[in-house]
């Protein structure tokens, strides 16, 4: 399998095209050979009801810098060996990956919490706006109350 080159300890990307989750995890694992535990999360477009497509827009000057700060704060807080934070932008169809994060740490609890923290913040605190294409056109997705509650867990 072709080996992706990752930057270490933090690899943060906004991707305009699809991502290969297997290659990403293999490269992250190789980049963190001394970690005891690696947790990854992959979020995909669900074929819910009549959702035909999903579009994520970002704001260049804020979105990626915000994700980089998030990765740094996760690394410091959970003593991570490293983190991968990748988010798709543009149009995606059901089954496609939207987001992938991974956290490497000495102990598994830190790796789990690091990945969980990254996702809760990407969901409600990253500069990204999502809309869905349904049978009757495009609709902006409102932030969910549950995402807000998830975020409050880390305060």
């Amino acid at each position, binding site marked *: 399998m072709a080996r992706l080159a990752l930057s270490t300890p933090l690899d943060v990307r906004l991707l305009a095209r699809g991502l290969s989750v297997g290659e990403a995890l293999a490269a992250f694992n190789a980049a963190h050979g001394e970690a005891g535990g690696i947790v990854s999360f992959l979020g995909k477009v669900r074929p819910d009801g009549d959702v035909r497509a999903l579009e994520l827009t970002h*704001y260049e000057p804020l979105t990626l810098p915000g994700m980089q700060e998030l990765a740094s704060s996760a690394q410091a807080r959970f003593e991570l060996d490293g983190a991968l934070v990748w988010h798709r932008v543009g149009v995606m169809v059901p089954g496609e990956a939207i987001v992938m994060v991974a956290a490497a740490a000495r102990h598994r609890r830190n790796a789990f919490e690091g990945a969980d923290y990254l996702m809760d913040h990407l*969901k409600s605190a990253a*500069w990204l*706006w999502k809309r869905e294409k349904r049978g009757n056109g495009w609709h*902006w997705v*409102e*932030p*969910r109350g549950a*995402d807000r509650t998830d975020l409050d867990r880390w305060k």
Partner: protein
Amino acid sequence: MGVRILFLGPLRDIAGEPEREVPAPLDWAGLLAAVGPDIADQLREPRVHVACGSRVLGDKTRLDAREGDEVALLPPVSGG
């Protein structure tokens, strides 16, 4: 070249355009007047933020955009 106002996410649909050019300088009152009543109502909500020159303003009512600045209007996010 004035000040460029960017409408992000759902604000783009309300504005009917992704961006608008207005004369510099631009303060909070000027912004509210420039964007029309519907967007102005949104801007007054605490959960809608304003960035100027790539920085999110802690207090958006202190907006002070100069010639060439980009002012981004940021509604609540929905990522992941």
